[in-house]
């Protein structure tokens, strides 16, 4: 076999000291080096944050997130000598640009503030550090962490306002801002300034709604149930549940008011406690008039409306004797302020032009003020302005700086006036004279009787006449006696008794076992039945109010009927 195969000369080469196998460790080394380099590159940079507490933070676990995207991780937590928590955070290199001079860091954890619950996911996943990049220059590496999450990140466009209020009411962080019941923004911060005792709410309005807010917009707290009792019945206003719990702020431009200019960012606006307060503050001071009231001001207070034929045109500004220079005046001076804006829509223009001139004309026509009762139940009063052409014209008077507006008594107060007039008249009647006159008359009568007596005593014949008269009287008495002794007269008591008996008989049906009594008794019984069934019905309605509409549940005792 051996000789059949051709001799193959071995190709002898000098053995190289290098074997190809060494490529494997070299490749492994290169790969390892590349991995190390990549790992190093991916590590990113360390930035330092200072917090008051490391509550919820875990080294090597807590993530740093920007808009919920992980950009880094907490590497170590250390307590400084000043007992401050120093958190070292490694930010990924490709996200390092997010760390700027005005970047904000805060610990995002589950928070329950007022009615708003946020960060619920952190209950399970654990807290994380939030990062808002801000807009400043890059390069900062040391930050002071916020204790509460910041407002909507400054990088999100929108309108930021500061609402100032004396009282926060139920408005808290997270309360909605509503424009005609549409949510347009939220309260984001709540700061109480102890020096000024003013509450400041930071408010963020979404960008697409920001032009709804103008310089004439009014903000007011709209929290809770409101119940109005008016001439038109009850008006119960129940806001949505969340605003009932968290409170809400309504914003609107009052009716009849031009929208005004757009509001600049971070401007300060006042927040009113209620719509009424907002409307009052919206008052555009205009003409001020003085009226003198000579009656009780009970029910009239500062802020009470001033109306012209039922249209609101102003309010009562002040009630004070200070308004008068003339100190020995009895009537109460009341200053009424007319709202320019309301006047423009609610008042005849004739008075508006040129103040004094137009006003004089109006006074000539009989413009007068009167107190009227706005609500008989609560006794609220308002000042009504109207023309009374038939009343005497009063010349324009000035009292200090104010024009004096004449007053007139009308309506309920007028009625009171007339009654008091009547009483006054009664009071003024000359009763004393009348009594003395009567006395005089009786005196005269006594005198007359006395003179008669005299006349009697002076005449003897009169006595004799009297004697005969007496005798005649005796005779008459005797006749009367006879009459009484007569049978017919004796019969009278028996007749009387008979009459009584028949009366008795006729009264019998009314007695205990009489027919009428029975009837009455039955009626009473029926009444009692009726009352009982009413009671039952009331019970049923209170048990099941809808039975009033849908009737009693028929299933309980319905007799099934066979189908024919």
């Amino acid at each position, binding site marked *: *076999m*051996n000789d059949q*195969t051709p001799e*193959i000369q*071995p190709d002898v080469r000098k053995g190289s000291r290098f*074997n190809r*196998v*060494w490529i*494997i*460790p070299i*490749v*492994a*080394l290169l*790969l*390892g080096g590349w*991995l190390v380099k990549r*790992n190093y590159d991916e590590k990113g940079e360390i930035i330092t944050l200072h917090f008051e507490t490391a509550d919820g933070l875990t080294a090597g*676990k807590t*993530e740093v997130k920007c808009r919920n995207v992980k950009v880094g991780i907490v590497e170590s937590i250390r307590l400084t000598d000043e007992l401050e928590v120093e958190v070292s955070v490694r930010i990924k290199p490709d996200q390092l640009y997010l760390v700027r001079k005005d970047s904000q860091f805060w610990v995002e954890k589950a928070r329950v503030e007022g009615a708003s619950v946020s960060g619920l*996911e952190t209950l*399970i*996943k*654990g807290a994380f550090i939030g990062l808002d990049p801000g807009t400043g220059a890059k390069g900062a590496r040391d930050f002071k962490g916020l204790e509460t999450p910041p407002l909507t990140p400054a990088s999100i466009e929108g309108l930021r306002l500061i609402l100032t209020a004396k009282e926060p009411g139920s408005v808290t962080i997270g309360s909605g801002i509503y424009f005609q019941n549409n949510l347009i923004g939220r309260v984001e911060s709540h700061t109480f300034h102890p020096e000024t005792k003013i509450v400041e709410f930071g408010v963020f309005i979404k960008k697409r709604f920001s032009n709804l807010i103008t310089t004439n917009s009014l903000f007011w707290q709209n929290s809770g149930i409101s119940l109005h009792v008016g001439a038109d019945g009850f008006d119960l206003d129940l806001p949505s549940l969340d605003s009932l719990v968290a409170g809400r702020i309504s914003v609107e431009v009052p009716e009849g008011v031009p929208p005004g200019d757009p509001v600049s960012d971070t401007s300060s606006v006042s927040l009113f406690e209620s719509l009424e307060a907002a409307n009052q503050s919206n008052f555009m001071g205009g003409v001020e008039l003085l009226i003198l009231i000579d009656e009780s001001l009970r029910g009239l207070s500062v802020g009470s409306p001033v109306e012209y034929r039922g249209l609101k045109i102003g309010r009562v500004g002040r009630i004070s004797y200070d308004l008068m220079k003339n100190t020995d005046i009895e009537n109460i001076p009341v200053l009424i302020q007319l709202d320019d804006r309301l006047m423009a829509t609610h008042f005849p223009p004739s008075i508006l032009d040129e103040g004094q001139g137009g006003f004089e004309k109006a006074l000539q026509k009989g413009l007068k003020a009167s107190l009227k009762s706005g609500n008989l139940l609560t006794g609220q009063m308002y000042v009504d302005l109207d023309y009374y052409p038939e009343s005497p014209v009063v010349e324009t008077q000035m009292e200090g700086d104010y024009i004096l507006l004449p007053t007139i008594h009308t309506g309920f107060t007028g009625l009171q006036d007339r009654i008091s007039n009547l009483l006054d008249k009664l009071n003024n009647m000359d009763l004393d004279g009348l009594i003395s006159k009567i006395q005089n008359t009786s005196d005269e009568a006594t005198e007359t009787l006395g003179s008669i007596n005299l006349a009697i005593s002076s005449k003897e014949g009169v006595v004799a006449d009297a004697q005969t008269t007496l005798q005649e009287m005796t005779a008459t008495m005797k006749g009367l006696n006879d009459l009484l002794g007569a049978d017919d007269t004796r019969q009278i008591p028996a007749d009387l008794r008979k009459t009584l008996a028949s009366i008795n008989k006729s009264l019998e049906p009314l007695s205990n076992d009489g027919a009428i009594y029975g009837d009455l008794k039955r009626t009473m019984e029926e009444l009692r039945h009726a009352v009982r069934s009413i009671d039952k019905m009331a019970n049923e309605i209170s048990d099941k109010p809808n039975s009033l509409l849908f009737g009693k549940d028929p299933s309980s005792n319905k007799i099934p009927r066979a189908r024919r």
Partner: protein
Amino acid sequence: MKSALDENLAACHTCDKVSDLSLHHCPRCGTPLHGRKQDSVQRCLALAFAGILAYIPANLMPIMLVTQLGVEEPSTILGGVATFWEMHAYPVAITIFIASVMIPGLKFLALGFLCAAATGKIKMAPPVANRIYWLTELVGRWSMVDVFVVAILVGLVHMGDLMTIRPGPAAIAFGAMVVLTMLAAHAFDPKLIWDQIRKSQNKPLSK
């Protein structure tokens, strides 16, 4: 004592047919014939060195990425050992430590010793050297335990947002290390040890 090489005979690597070395190729299957594995020590050392390189990231980098409720938590082998140790699960901790850290390390040491013995750098009693070689070969395939565990967990734990497990970069490194050490052990020709002994016993190693 004579070896087969002295008779110019060699066994085929593929079919184990013993043929004369002058044939160069196995008459049965055509595989080139070698008296000893080619560049055995060098290959073994190179592969073992690559294995050591892979051993470093295998222990430093996370082998498993557990994403629990959105929070990713990487865990390294040694971290896992420490965790089990703290949980007082000592047998588990010891098992992982031995299987994943100690055995690969010892394997590199063993290969180093064998290579040194094969090149005559150190003297070693043949039965001991043989035992070491046998152990290295035997243990080789079992050091993949870690990778197996990770593979099983990755396949099993898929609970959506609740919990997911992904293999980390160390798993690849670990796998590579195990494969490299196995290849290194395979590349080593134990006959070299005997050659050394024979060399020292009867000085001239005639052909």
